[in-house]
């Protein structure tokens, strides 16, 4: 397949991170309002061929993290600190035009709502060829068959006909596919997917997740997967970061994390979702309260008011993210006993 010419396996699971985010902090500074830190010292690495998940409930800072890395936050009213190093270049301090070039060529992003990312008055095929013309310096004539192939690859039936369709003529699932085709057109080495299947039905979600998996294993693309769905994380992500109130509270490789979750927030999430596997009728154990109850991280654990097992320190001191040698990290004064 020409459009994703990276030799399969060439750079998969390399040891060097492709993207390295360090102490990312995003503070919204609106006039007349107190500054609000939405992302608070987030660090993680993504390697080629690896899928890293950011999971947590709404408002925990997942989208702001990805938009900050992509340079897509609103121009005013926020302060971004830290670094996001992509092959030696800090994306956070890159000039606007250079960043725009990067976004087309090396890094792509797909969103929950594909309609907002597609131009409503330009046919789908044209939107894909445009990416190819711009970033691969192809002529329109040369780009058209490649665009057709891309649409075919993402599972859009009858791609010849679909090339001339406008976004509103496609269903939600087909639009998300078209957007993925556009993202693939530039053979990105890093793909950030922000809730790409949240608006889709479960059978369509299965198709899209299959597509993303294929992309990672066959082309060695690095994937940052943002979702609130622990099931999606369990099936897709090599490494999982659980966010709460703008900070990473727990990190682990997926098998280890799910086998032995240690942060009370992680265990709380797992205990509160009904599951299709296992026996029916086991009562759910909700996490009490809501994020409105959070304490400020500066001198407490933000989760303490909702925690099932807080100790005195939790409301007096701010817990640090402690790393072990095995890629596990935990921000908690009184973690749940390890089970393995």
């Amino acid at each position, binding site marked *: 397949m020409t459009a994703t010419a990276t030799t399969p396996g060439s750079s998969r699971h390399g040891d060097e991170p492709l993207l390295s985010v360090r102490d990312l902090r995003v503070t919204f500074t609106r006039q007349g309002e107190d500054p609000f830190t939405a992302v608070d010292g987030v660090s993680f690495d993504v390697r080629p061929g690896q899928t890293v998940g950011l999971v947590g409930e709404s408002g925990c800072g997942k989208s702001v993290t990805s938009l900050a890395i992509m340079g897509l936050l609103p121009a005013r009213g926020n302060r971004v600190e830290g670094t996001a190093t992509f092959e030696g270049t800090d994306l956070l301090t890159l000039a606007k035009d250079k960043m725009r070039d990067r976004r087309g060529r090396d890094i792509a992003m797909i969103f929950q709502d594909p309609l907002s990312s597609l131009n409503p008055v*330009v046919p789908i095929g044209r939107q894909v060829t445009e990416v190819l013309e711009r970033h691969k310096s192809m002529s329109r004539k040369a780009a058209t068959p490649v665009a057709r192939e891309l649409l075919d690859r993402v599972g859009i039936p009858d791609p010849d006909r679909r090339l001339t369709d406008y976004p509103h003529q496609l269903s939600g699932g087909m639009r998300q596919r078209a957007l993925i085709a556009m993202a693939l057109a530039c053979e990105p080495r890093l793909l950030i997917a922000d809730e790409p299947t949240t608006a889709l039905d479960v059978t369509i979600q299965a198709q899209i997740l299959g597509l993303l998996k294929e992309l990672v294993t066959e082309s060695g693309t690095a994937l940052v997967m943002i979702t609130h769905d622990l099931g999606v994380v369990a099936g897709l992500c090599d490494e999982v970061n659980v966010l709460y109130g703008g900070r990473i509270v727990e990190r682990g490789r997926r098998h280890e994390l799910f086998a032995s979750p240690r942060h009370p927030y992680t265990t709380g999430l797992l205990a509160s979702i009904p599951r299709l596997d296992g026996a029916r009728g086991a009562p759910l154990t909700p996490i009490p309260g809501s994020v409105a109850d959070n304490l400020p991280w500066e001198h407490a654990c933000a989760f303490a008011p909702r925690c099932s097992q807080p100790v005195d320190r939790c409301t007096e001191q701010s817990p640090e993210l402690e790393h072990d040698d095995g890629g596990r990290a935990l921000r908690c004064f009184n973690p749940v006993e390890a089970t393995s």
Partner: protein
Amino acid sequence: MTTTAEPTDAAATDGPADDARAHDDGDLLVDARGVKVHFPIKRGVVFDKVVGHVYAVDGVDLRIRKGETYGLVGESGCGKSTLGKAILGLEPPTDGSVVIDGTDVASLKGEELRKRRKDFQMVFQDPMSSLDPRQSVESLLVEGMKAHGLASDDKATASRLRELLKAVGLPAAALKKYPHEFSGGQRQRIGIARALAVEPKLIVADEPVSALDVSVQAQVINLLEDLQDEFELTYLVVAHDLAVVRHISDRIGVMYLGGLVEEAGADDLYAQPLHPYTRALLSAVPVPDPTREDEREQILLVGDLPSPSKPPPGCRFHTRCPWRQETRCDDERPQLRVLEIDGVPSSHRVACHWAEDIESGKIQPHHVDPTATEQDLREEQDAPHAVGDVEEAVQYQHGGHGAGS
């Protein structure tokens, strides 16, 4: 029952299944038969010309027993909400009948209808859009009670309000507040309190937890379960989340394009899904367990749900079905029926011609051509006239975003 290709003629309003269930008619709260809701598609500037119909609900029989929770699942657009509304008389059925507690809903008029309304309440997905933002919680709750003559005595009303808030787990101080002052989960509690205020028998809950974060979802699910025990409520829960539906339902109906394709007790359905669509649906749900995820065998469906304005003839699932056969599937609409499979109870009914042979393995799944399943929206919407500039397309792709959630 023989069927035709014409959507509106294709559904049975009676059949052998009725006999199988006749014995438990005594404790039925809802008895809906042959319910159809067809929305006209209109075109034209001066005269509204009807150019077609959306066959949102197209021949559904549904019975709900007193005190049970009936769950309705299926992908968006399959007609779940419309069926829920039709049962409550909020969407008049094009055809068929709905009898609730012995009364034909369609026969109720004026004052009588208003009185009976209190027996059936609805809880919506987005509590914010169903709660008037200018009304305090107290006035929201009292409104319904007054309308049904349940708030004549001030003292009794005050104590009833306290009871209600306690039942849904809100502090008494909530009465003086307005909807925007609450979190999503709390607003859903207000929506539930408002439904409860008039002492209903049946609550139709349409996606009651879909808008909530998982940690809060469980609070509302547990609340609904507690209230059911306390107030002897009957629920019809409409949701697209299969794990949620399985958790709270006693019986489940699976909908596809306006019709029920399978109905069974919650445990039976998940232990042994027998309709090809149900099999695919259940196999597509990711579970939060990496070991199971690595092993999960998926039946990947190709393509999209066909448009409900042009449902395929025969079995509505035939365009996407991996088990579709040369005969019957394309031209004969299967009805819900009891299967001849050992160990499958008569309460487990399936609308597939080949369910027995599929279960025994005699019929194996095959490749499905995706082109046949394509959802073509072209004829339904006109293309925009302006053709934008290329630069704009790039902006849309890379820059057209605020920090959405």
